[in-house]
């Protein structure tokens, strides 16, 4: 398909690289590069959506408040976006960073400018997700500052597709495969970064250190270069930290140009969003718990 000069420029200009989006999460110099997909998986209540809010805030905040000032598209498939919570995180971060010279009016203006960098889309089925990704292609070509695509969650239609596809596994996975292929093409052409959350459907009985296998289709699994496994520490175990729930994230980065690397980190969830505590990293070897 031919494209206009403006579209070509927007495509090649080079979107902001998000390698430094959150150094606590990823191994040394191993943040998500252009066109890479990061999958966050975990059980309910393990902090996946909070992490997405944290990354969102990091992207839309102005540079003076520690942000990257890029546009973000949030694809909401299960109506889990809580705008009030998001705004309270943005507010508290803007307040801590720009506390000195701001009056009430300019604070609101700063909040509004942050929110105007965010685009939210609600999808209610995987066919609609496919059509929406096609539609987003025009947004991608017209907004060169758009560098991040957040999908919460990619597994929302898993059971609907599985039942709708009857007995054949290919038919069941067909819709998500098409979405994954289209997403792959958009990543190659427009070089954005994608973070997607995937809900776990089986409770793992062997504790948080076991890696749960992805149950989504093969085309999606091939796209993913980083997997963040989220889990929650049992509150009974940590007696001193009983007041605050500790969440752990274990990152597995595997892409063709790098060796496999791992990193574990933990965080609390406060009123101002995610706060990281001690981290540990390793290269090529399993971190023993």
């Amino acid at each position: 398909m031919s494209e206009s000069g403006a579209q070509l420029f927007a495509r090649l200009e080079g979107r902001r690289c998000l390698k430094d989006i959150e150094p606590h999460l990823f191994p040394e110099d191993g943040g998500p590069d252009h066109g890479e997909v990061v999958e966050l998986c975990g059980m309910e209540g393990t902090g996946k959506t909070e992490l997405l809010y944290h990354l969102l805030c990091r992207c839309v905040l102005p540079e003076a408040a520690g942000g990257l000032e890029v546009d973000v598209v949030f694809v909401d498939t299960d109506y889990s976006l809580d705008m009030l919570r998001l705004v309270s995180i943005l507010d508290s971060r803007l307040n801590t960073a720009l506390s000195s010279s701001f009056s009430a009016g300019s604070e609101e203006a700063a909040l509004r400018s942050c929110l105007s960098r965010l685009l939210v889309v609600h999808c209610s089925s995987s066919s609609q997700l496919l059509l929406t990704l096609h539609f987003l292609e025009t947004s991608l070509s017209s907004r060169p500052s758009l560098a991040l695509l957040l999908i919460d969650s990619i597994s929302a239609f898993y059971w609907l597709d599985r039942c709708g596809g009857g007995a054949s596994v290919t038919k069941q996975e067909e819709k998500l495969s098409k979405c994954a292929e289209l997403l792959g093409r958009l990543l190659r052409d427009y070089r954005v970064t994608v973070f997607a959350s995937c809900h776990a459907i089986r409770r793992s009985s062997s504790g948080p250190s076991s890696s749960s296998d992805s149950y989504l289709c093969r085309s999606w699994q091939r796209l993913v270069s980083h997997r963040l496994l989220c889990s929650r520490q049992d509150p009974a175990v940590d007696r001193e930290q009983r007041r605050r729930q500790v969440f752990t994230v274990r990152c597995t980065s595997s892409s063709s140009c790098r060796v496999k690397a791992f990193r574990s980190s933990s965080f609390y969830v406060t009123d101002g969003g995610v706060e990281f505590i001690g981290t540990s990293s390793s290269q090529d070897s399993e971190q023993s718990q």
Partner: protein
Amino acid sequence: MVVLREGMCPGLDAGLLRDLRAADVKTVEDLVSSDTEELARKCSVSYKALLAIRRVLLAQHTAFPVSGADLYEELLSSTAILSTGNPSLDKLLDSGLYTGEITELSGGPGSGKSQVCFGVAVHISYQLKQSVVYIDTTGGLTAGRLLEMLQTETSNTEEQMAALQRIQIFRLFDVYSLLDCLYGLRSGGLQQASVGGGSVKAVIVDSVSAVISPLLGGKHNEGMSLMIQVAGVLKTMAKDFNVAALVTNHVTRSGSGEVQPGLGASWSHIPRTRILLERAEPSAAVSPSGLRSATLIKSSRQPCHIKAEFDLRWWSRSEEESSRKRKLDETDS
């Protein structure tokens, strides 16, 4: 999956439809995903015309992106917080039930889930003067109990009748009728259910696990798919019509023996807020106590695992009793 039909958009006539079907393009998704140049060649139609059709169909069927600022404005003006009528439960829920979300109440038999639902329905209908849709799947709702709760609020029979009229009840016992009812409510039924000036502010489903858990398990996936469909229609209804959805769930025991809400891991992502109800530590009293303890197990606004104790008889207390109870609460805390 939207099938291509004649007249869906200008330019899509019967002849073009036939050629498209011959080229194996039957749905809107197929049309949008296929290569427009090649398709135009195969169906011997001009490239520009096909491109225009593609653009119109995409605009018709896609979800439209909204700016974050507009979404926030809309939410500020439309979100309401409905008090449940019980101050300790309200404190646990961060001042009450939020519209636009699903709140789940889980508990074992006799833990008071239905009583809490009655209390919430009566409070919203009498104090807040708004309508409530109550979907009863267990057969546990009796108008007599609602009347009893209302009689402690007011002795004026007209006000009692007006409040009872604002609670609309549906009795269904299988998941297909539940889906029928919810789809009907979503496509216009909610406006019709708004009587007495107040719009519907809450939809209570007691209980959602009674109709879904018999279908789960085994080799068939239909049960899971129906569960996700129910969740989807409840969420879209809550968001589009600004109602608070309250559902109840049973409990099971996890592998390590502790009590957890039922319906499995796939349902656990659906409600925004989850509360587990249990009987409070019973004192040596022989008479059945109304004390219950509620634990917050999932919330996006409060730290988890905070507990609150409350009395189920709160919603049917009389006036002098309530002031005495309030003094008791103050000395306790």
